[in-house]
């Protein structure tokens, strides 16, 4: 690996100061599972690496009734195992369990997954479907950005060079709500999503009060399928309604063709995975 200076801040303020002083020369290190391979192959050549492992604030996982707070450097494995995340924020736990191998999931963090902003990032669609918010700290203080607005392009986010994603806040889905994340990969383990879909349904008196559908790997950024959501809301979730939503979700996808799959295949997968995740979300919501 190319030489670099390593700083070991103990607080977010200290880390922000380093970023402010070093600018784009500095890179934040959380789990390292994306950063280190890119540094080893020379894709990234930071002069300064800022290790967040000594900052307690970004390593705390707080599942509370008023919502879930996940420090940006909480590893995927912790989300996969946490009983509250599994029962209440199920799609997030499911997506965390799909990242790399056990050895990778013990290092790879939720913040790293979203800040690297790969179009195929598995933990992004559940955050969109659960209406999670990014808590960002920079030299000018704190700001909050919904994940629907967080991603700006392939490997690009709203984060400035001197800003740090500190925490991910997920509001409670409420009673009678259920969700699922599914992805398609040719291999079952250690693969990257050809398409990923997260759905979340909330029910009341036999009707759907809220539907959220988010897609990964079908555009430069993870997308909400707004029209599909609206088609489900305000009425019972019937097989026909699910079919119509799956069709509308396909319309949102702007996939490319690459070695993982053609654009047509990806559109087909959007339909299939939207249908499947909505059926499971309905069951899990008690419908």
């Amino acid at each position, binding site marked *: *690996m*190319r*030489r*670099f*200076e*390593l700083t*070991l801040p103990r607080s977010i303020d200290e880390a922000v100061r380093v970023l402010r002083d070093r600018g784009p020369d500095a890179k934040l*290190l959380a*789990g*390292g*599972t994306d950063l*280190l*391979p890119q540094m*080893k192959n020379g894709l990234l050549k930071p002069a300064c*690496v800022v*290790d967040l*492992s*000594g900052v307690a604030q970004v390593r705390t996982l707080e599942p509370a009734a008023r919502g879930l707070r996940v420090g940006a450097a909480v590893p995927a*494995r912790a989300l996969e195992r946490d009983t509250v995340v599994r029962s209440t924020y199920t799609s997030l736990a499911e997506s965390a369990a799909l990242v*790399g*191998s*056990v*050895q*990778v999931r*013990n*290092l790879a963090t939720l913040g790293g997954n979203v800040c690297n902003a790969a179009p195929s990032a598995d933990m992004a669609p559940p955050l969109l479907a659960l209406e999670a918010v990014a808590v960002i700290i920079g030299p000018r203080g704190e700001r909050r950005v919904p994940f629907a607005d967080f991603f700006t392009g392939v490997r690009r986010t709203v984060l400035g060079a001197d800003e740090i994603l500190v925490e991910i806040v997920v509001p409670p889905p409420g009673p009678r709500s259920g969700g699922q994340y599914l992805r398609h990969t040719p291999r*079952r*383990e*250690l693969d990257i999503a050809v398409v990923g879909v997260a759905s979340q349904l909330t029910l009341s008196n036999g009707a759907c009060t809220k539907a959220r559908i988010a897609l990964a790997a079908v555009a430069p950024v993870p997308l909400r399928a707004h029209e599909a959501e609206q088609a489900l809301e305000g009425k019972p979730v019937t097989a026909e309604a699910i079919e119509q939503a799956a069709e509308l979700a396909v319309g949102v996808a702007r996939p490319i063709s690459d070695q993982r799959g053609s654009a047509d295949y990806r559109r087909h997968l959007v339909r299939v995975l939207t249908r499947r995740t909505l059926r499971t979300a309905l069951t899990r919501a008690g419908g």
Partner: protein
Amino acid sequence: MPKQILSCIVNGETVEVLVQPYVTLLDALREDLDLTGPKEGCGTGDCGACTVHLDGEPIASCLMLAMQARGREVRTIEGLAGSGALHPLQDAFVRLGVPQCGFCIPGVLMAAAALLAENPRPTQEQIRYGIAGNLCRCTGYTKMLAAITEAAGALPARGA
């Protein structure tokens, strides 16, 4: 670049070692601490040959800077067995003749040991999932599955 002092616990002993800021935990273990059990296969976290335990959890030591292990507890294959006796997993791997070239074996054993520590009676499916991050290119995984299954039977059940 000035070296930094890494203090951590490795295989039960407190160590202090000067490391370059840009070396991985794997390199520090192999080059500075002479623990050559963990191997570098791919260097990108795909093969699992570098698996060690960090605070009891299996990690890819090629994906972690040495300094990130400061204040933490690292266990390598060299520290898996108690003194004088093989770990039941090692014993089963020897008796069933699992290793061929042996390169992947330290990583497989550390992944399997972490699995059994969390789940002493795993199903075949859970064993496959537990070592899914470890590649063996000599042969297949049939003997590994048999050996891990046998070792699981030899371990005391949780709470026993």
